[in-house]
């Protein structure tokens, strides 16, 4: 019952709250707290300062309140108000069952709910530490007895000898270690209910690289196995030291971003435990379940977290305890900052109302519409294209400047990012908001293993990002539209992977790419281009239908790349293995080129041939198309003649080259591969077409620009003369 009380949520638009707020504003009830010290009325009025009903009556009966002397002229007014309060309280009692329903509960559950976490954590904002207790209930749904359990301890990644820091240094030689980066998490006690304290049994393991100094994964062997179908409960106490933000985790001044912050059990997947170390180029993988998290922080901090706030209590020691509940999610992250300004809005989709909560930095308030409109637009398109957004809220965090915590996704909470000077023509806030929200679908709901199949969430999400940004903005200017410079989303994706076109296949463990750049280029950009090219192959609507089917079929599960590829083939009704084997599993280089274009007069051998006349002189024209790379793909080629005739040719692309010859009373003026621009995997844009007539416009333009810059540089240097 006590727990239910804590989950009671009173939206600020409730009539009693509104009424009480009105009374307070009108009659200065802040000065008249005595009326509050009576039963239920107290509950209401105390909570006027916070639109959430407090879960306990611990705040009752402060000496200062009891000793308060009510001015005579206000006593009568207070009597009236007391009655109004009682009426409001009565209204509350009558409608209580309805209000309890305001907390989102999924019945039946949307996922298997393998885990249930109950965490109580206290943040020491001065020392930047967390002390917490965690009760984890694990349901053994593996179908076999389990006696070993691995856990992530990811805050230990922020230590100089950890695999994460070693990889960071290897990928970025300029990285310098600072002592403020040091973070840690220490398990103070580890108890298994019914078995006892097993703290001594904790054993650190490094399943990925064998690094003995990496302490991001530990395992515990139980003296007796947990039978299939039954549950086991772990009680863990831990102490964490937060780092200066690294990998979007830690603190910066009074800003805190808490991600991967608690001991989290691995995932039993494909018949084994899957519990990777923390890597520089990787994200995460965890079980679906429920989270009940009580966070105690200094009172002035504004909080944001995964899930839904169900209670908030101000403690006598100057702290407050805020309780969150989340279900059918696979992670829990939270943030606290003194400076957040809270902007609330809502959007209604096919699954009902979604409350939008923006936690903005004060200097960025003018950019609220940029975040909000992009978020609503993305919600709208995703709802229409892929399926309903099941949760009733989404929180967008605008991190403090310099925090390096922007651009990350957690269930029902994302971090975006901007700067106070961000021009309208640089659509970074929009892009990041769209991308991170997209992860609610591709990662949050369809929860693939980000360590092993990163492209499944990053790639599909980048493709969905292209589609959403194209729909929300001008497709040719959806990234940059500034000072005459433009960049569209799909062209940017294509540009992004060219440097790593043939280094790594999509299906590779994210921490095993040739370098960090390749991980990003392949998992995000190349994967998006693989899907854009696939769209050209099977049609936009078919691919959209395939993604919808994939989403609906695999939501709240952990699918593999084969699940996705089979779904696409099934929906498309085609065998696409030839494409997937090259684009997904292979590293073939995609490069088709116009090798040559030539038109010769048929009477070239005659000595006294007449002067060429357009439309009368006959030519033999030859167009040769070459496959320069090893990626085999069918090609469309468009050949234009000077009499206006256009010929479309199709080539299966298998041979190294193909020749198209024509005898016409017209010369070829241009030949172009992929005239509809459906192929985004081709690594060279410039050899895809050839014009027989020289066009010097672009060269002239760039040459004058280069000339000007050279002159200007010289003139600046000459200032020293």
């Amino acid at each position, binding site marked *: 019952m006590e727990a239910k009380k804590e989950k009671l949520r009173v939206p600020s638009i409730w009539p009693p709250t509104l009424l009480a707020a009105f009374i307070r504003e009108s009659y200065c009830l802040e000065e008249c707290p005595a009326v509050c010290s009576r039963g239920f009325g107290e509950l209401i009025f105390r909570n006027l300062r916070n639109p959430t009903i407090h879960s306990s009556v611990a705040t009752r009966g402060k000496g200062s309140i009891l000793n308060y002397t009510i001015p005579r002229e206000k006593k009568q007014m207070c009597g009236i108000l007391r009655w109004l309060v009682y009426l409001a309280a009565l209204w509350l009692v009558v409608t209580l069952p309805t209000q309890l329903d305001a907390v989102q509960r999924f019945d039946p559950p949307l996922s298997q709910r393998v885990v249930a976490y109950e965490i109580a954590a206290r943040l020491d904002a001065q020392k930047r530490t967390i002390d917490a207790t965690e009760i984890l209930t694990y349901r053994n749904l593996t179908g076999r007895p389990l006696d070993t359990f691995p856990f992530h301890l990811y805050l230990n990644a922020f230590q100089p000898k950890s695999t994460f820091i070693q990889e960071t240094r290897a990928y970025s030689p300029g990285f310098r270690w600072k002592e403020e980066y040091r973070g840690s998490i220490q398990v103070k006690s580890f108890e298994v209910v019914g078995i006892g304290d097993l703290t001594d049994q904790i054993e650190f393991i490094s399943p990925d690289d064998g690094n003995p100094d990496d302490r991001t994964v530990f395992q515990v062997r139980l003296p007796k196995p947990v039978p299939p179908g039954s549950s086991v409960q772990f009680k863990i106490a831990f102490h964490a030291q937060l780092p200066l933000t690294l990998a979007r985790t830690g603190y910066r*001044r*009074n800003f805190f971003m808490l991600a991967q912050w608690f001991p989290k059990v691995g995932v039993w997947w494909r018949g084994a435990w899957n519990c990777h170390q923390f890597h520089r180029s990787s994200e995460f993988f965890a079980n679906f379940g429920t989270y009940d998290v009580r966070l105690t922080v200094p009172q002035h901090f504004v909080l944001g977290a995964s899930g839904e706030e169900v209670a908030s209590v101000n403690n006598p020691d100057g702290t407050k305890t805020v309780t969150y509940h989340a279900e059918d999610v696979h992670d829990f992250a939270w943030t606290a900052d003194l*400076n957040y300004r809270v902007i609330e809005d809502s959007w209604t989709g096919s699954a009902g109302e979604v409350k939008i909560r923006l936690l903005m*930095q004060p*200097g960025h308030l003018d950019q609220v519409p940029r975040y909000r409109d992009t978020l609503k637009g993305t919600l709208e398109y995703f709802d229409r294209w892929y399926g309903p957004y099941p949760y009733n809220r989404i929180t967008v965090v605008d991190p*403090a*400047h*310099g925090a390096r915590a922007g651009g990350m996704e957690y269930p029902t909470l994302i971090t975006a990012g901007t*700067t*106070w*000077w961000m021009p309208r023509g640089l659509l970074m806030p929009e892009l990041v908001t769209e991308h991170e929200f997209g992860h609610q679908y591709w990662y949050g709901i369809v929860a693939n293993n980000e360590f092993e199949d990163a492209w499944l969430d990053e790639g599909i999400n980048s493709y969905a990002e292209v589609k959403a940004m194209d729909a929300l903005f001008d497709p*040719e200017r959806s990234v*940059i539209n500034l000072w*005459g*410079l*433009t*960049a*569209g989303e799909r*062209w*940017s994706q*294509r*540009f992004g992977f*060219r440097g790593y076109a043939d280094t790594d296949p999509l299906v590779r463990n994210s921490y095993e790419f040739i370098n960090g750049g390749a991980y990003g280029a392949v998992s995000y950009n190349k994967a998006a281009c693989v899907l854009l090219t696939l769209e050209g192959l099977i049609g936009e609507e078919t691919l959209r239908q395939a993604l919808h089917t994939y989403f609906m079929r695999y939501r709240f599960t952990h699918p593999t790349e084969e699940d996705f590829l089979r779904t696409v083939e099934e929906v498309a009704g085609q065998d696409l293995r030839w494409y997937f084997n090259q684009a997904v599993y292979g590293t073939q280089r995609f490069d088709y080129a116009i090798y040559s274009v030539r038109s010769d007069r048929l009477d070239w051998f005659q000595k006294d041939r007449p002067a060429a006349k357009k439309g009368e002189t006959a030519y033999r024209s030859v167009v040769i198309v070459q496959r320069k790379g090893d990626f085999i793909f069918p090609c469309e080629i468009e050949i234009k003649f000077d009499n206006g005739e256009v010929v479309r040719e199709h080539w299966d692309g298998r041979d190294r080259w193909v020749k198209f010859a024509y005898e016409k009373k017209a010369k070829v003026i241009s030949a*172009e591969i992929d005239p509809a621009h459906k192929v985004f995997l081709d690594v*060279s*844009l*410039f050899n*895809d*077409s*050839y*014009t*027989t007539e*020289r*066009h*010097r*416009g*672009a*060269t*002239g*333009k*760039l*040459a*004058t*620009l*280069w*000339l*000007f*810059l*050279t*002159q*200007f*540089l*010289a*003139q*600046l*240097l*000459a*200032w*020293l*003369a």
Partner: protein
Amino acid sequence: MAAKESGIVIGGWRLLWRRQSLLWWVYAVNLILAVFATLPVVLRLSRVLNSSLAADRLYHGFDLPTFIELASHPDVALAAHVPGAALFAIVFFVFMLFLTGGILASYRQEQKPSRGEFFRACGAFFWRFVRLLIFMAIIVGLILLVGNRIRHWSDTLAAESPYEKLGFWVELSGGLLLLFILMCVRLWFDMAQVRAVAEDERKMRRTFLTAFKLTFSNFGTLFWLYLRISLVAWIGLLVGFWVWLRFVRPEWVWVSFLLQQAVILLWLGTRLWQRASETLWYRRRYPVPVPAIPPAAPPASPA
């Protein structure tokens, strides 16, 4: 005082106008050298762009991903041409250092010097100005070192401050302060060069110190003179940029070219305008001594 100052700036402008051939020569050399630096780029660009339909993405607009792909194309490799442009800039710098003596001598005299006189002055002052340049390089180097430390400090301040804009304002203030100091140093060495030419001074260390006293004892007048003309250059650049963005369509290559050249001409012109104004100021303060007329010899008495 103000009328006197503005008289100098306007007088400097008139002097620039009267000796405008100097400006045209400087501009012509700047353009020709830049053309040489640009030719290899044009050749490489034309190989890739002239027969590709993808060039349209750069002609009818400026698509950044396409440009970056072009810049990294093995047949173009734009980055490889940056040293060529830098070399050209160094040649132009040396050319201007050589020419400065002649330019200042030309502004110093009432009459336009002959070509021979002009180049004699160029040659006569070249090595002296090289010596002055070494002094200036040491001072500018020290200032940049301090500036770098200030920037580092302001970066830290910006990162640690809860106020996001603080860093920007600190950086901006620091940048403006640095610019102000650099302008002061430039002004000082401008005056050293003016004085060296006016007095035909050979000892550069003495010129360097005398110019310091001269500049900073008349700092307000000289700096205001220098600053106003600098502002003309900066405003001209911003207006040119605005016109280019606002009114020039991406396909109007020739219009872009003319606008760019107008900006270059403006910047070269304002620099020479500063030189002319400084010389004029010095000329008014220290007029060229009129040669004393020897007393007329008594007529020879008839023998």
